[in-house]
């Protein structure tokens, strides 16, 4: 029961911190936290697929970037102003994209799945980079993406208001993910991750489960990308690049794979480190690689696994 109470307490503390403490920090720290929250949404989407379903995708950036580009194109060209309509367009496009690619990718075996998602991600990246240049402006990307127009009395140009907007959308995403993971559907996904043959023998249509998990994960990643486009006011092809898909896996791994709050810890540590390291060196990717190798070889459970271990050891010493 102790752990349950601790969980509730830390949850309340997190809420108080995000709602009351962060807005009084200087602006650059607020910006950092806004990005951490957006990245957490993105990494959690990948966690549903990799941590809970056992499918390693190297194409998660495809959905993040597609939504970000849609926001940028629709708003800068003045085609759609209404935020809710843009949200709807993004979700529908991401569903179409993931449903068509997923139908191909989920059919193949584990390692092939990774290569295939890698290849699909590369296709979308090269579309944005070269083939659709009239719309995406290629390497230069799209500048001056406006903040969302919610039709509410609060202006999103104010960065504190925008911060709250990001917190609310992210909270909705996390709530949905939590419901999914705790539902029978979520338990079936974990079953597939651990032993697919057994699930097939039990009569589950594992293809359908994996396929739906792929689509849901794409939607959440798309919402992350949408938030990012509004936050960053600038979108370029690196949002679609496979390195960004790899970064999702990195953050997930650093935080603790398959743990619900792991992605949040991972995004926090990753973004903080990146902010700190980039002040000293331009070789961030190499640094990231070194950190990651360290985590894979010595801290295989990530931060969440480490905390769990610590908790267990403390519990034993008390008894």
């Amino acid at each position, binding site marked *: 029961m102790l752990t349950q109470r601790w969980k509730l307490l830390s949850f309340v503390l997190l809420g108080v911190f995000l709602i009351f403490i962060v807005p009084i920090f200087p602006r650059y720290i607020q910006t950092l936290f806004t990005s951490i929250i957006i990245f957490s949404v993105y990494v959690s989407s990948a966690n549903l697929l*990799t941590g809970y379903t*056992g499918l*390693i995708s190297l194409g998660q950036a495809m959905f993040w970037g597609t939504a970000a580009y849609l926001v940028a194109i629709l708003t800068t060209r003045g085609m759609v102003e209404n935020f809710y309509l843009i949200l709807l367009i993004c979700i529908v496009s991401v569903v179409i994209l993931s449903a068509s690619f997923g139908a*191909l990718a989920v*059919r*193949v*075996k*584990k*390692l*092939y799945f*990774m*290569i*295939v998602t*890698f*290849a*699909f991600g*590369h*296709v979308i990246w*090269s*579309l944005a980079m*070269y*083939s659709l240049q009239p719309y995406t402006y290629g390497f230069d990307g799209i500048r001056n993406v406006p903040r969302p127009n919610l039709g509410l009395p609060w202006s999103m140009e104010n960065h504190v208001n925008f911060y709250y907007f990001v917190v609310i959308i992210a909270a909705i995403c996390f709530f949905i993910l939590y419901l999914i993971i705790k539902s029978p559907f979520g338990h079936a996904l974990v079953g597939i991750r651990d032993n697919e043959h057994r699930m097939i023998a039990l009569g589950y249509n594992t293809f359908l489960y994996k396929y739906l998990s792929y689509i849901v994960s794409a939607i959440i990643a798309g919402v992350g990308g949408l938030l990012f486009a509004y936050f960053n006011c600038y979108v370029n092809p690196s949002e679609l690049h*496979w*390195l960004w898909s*790899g970064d999702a*896996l*990195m953050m997930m*791994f650093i935080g603790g*794979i398959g743990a619900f709050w792991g992605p949040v810890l991972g995004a926090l540590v990753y973004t903080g480190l990146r902010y700190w390291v980039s002040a000293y060196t331009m*070789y961030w*990717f*190499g*640094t*990231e*690689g*070194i950190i*990651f*190798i360290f985590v*894979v*070889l010595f801290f*295989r459970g990530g931060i969440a696994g480490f905390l769990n271990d610590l908790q267990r050891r403390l519990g034993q010493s008390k008894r």
Partner: protein
Amino acid sequence: MEFTIALAQLLNGIALGMLLFLLAAGLSLMFGLMGIVNLAHGSYFMIGGYVGMTILEATGDFRIAILAGGASGAFLGFVTERFFMRHLYGLRHHEPILLTFALSLILSDLSLFLWTGIARWVQPPTLLDFSINLIGTYYPAYRLAIILIGIIVFVGLYWFQEKTRWGAIVRAGVDDKEMATGLGINIPRVFTSVFCLGSFIAGFGGFIGSPILGLHIGLDVEIIMLAMAVVIVGGIGNLSGCLTTCLLLGLADTFGKVLWQRYASLTIYIIVVIVLLVQPTGLFGKKS
């Protein structure tokens, strides 16, 4: 398209396919034997090219540079296998793959540090720096030499795999690791050797390909993408299937760039999608 242009493009496609084969042969052998996808394989290719270029500038001897390129690839492969991958065999799939991803990030930044971000070109050796008259069109001899080298490597690997004792040991390892261990074969040593051989060929390919592809940061990703497509389209099967797939994709990419410029980068992936729809295990893969 005129006949002479078509002929030149045909040869270009074959040369690209041969370079791709130098990379994909090692990649698919590792995939078959150890069940890992080595994302750092493209980095061996790129670094092999850079090291070869540096040695060529220092010594002026193309042959030494070729060996240096291959040796640097083999060294990196050895380090990857012996000090990193070895701790991860038998784990769930994602750790080894992500580890090679992390290594490719490190190697890419290392190359950026050592050779800067400026694109470089290597001159073909003077012996081969001329053009041959082929039925009315002039074609660089160096590219024909690459095609020849590709054929020689293919024949060499084929002979190694099918006719030598070492090849038999590797094939035994691919088929059934436990049984091979039971027969007294030192499987970890086989793993290391295969890794070194595969990455030697990749580093070697990176250098001999540099007069055609150039050397720049990001080459590693471009080339590994193509090699991955080879693995999907060809499947994990035999060496000749791998070569056929490389030639197919090399030709598709080259002709795509001529006929369909704007969407050329998609040609290969359209083939990937079609193959996945028709036969998810790849054209030459084992059916499960």
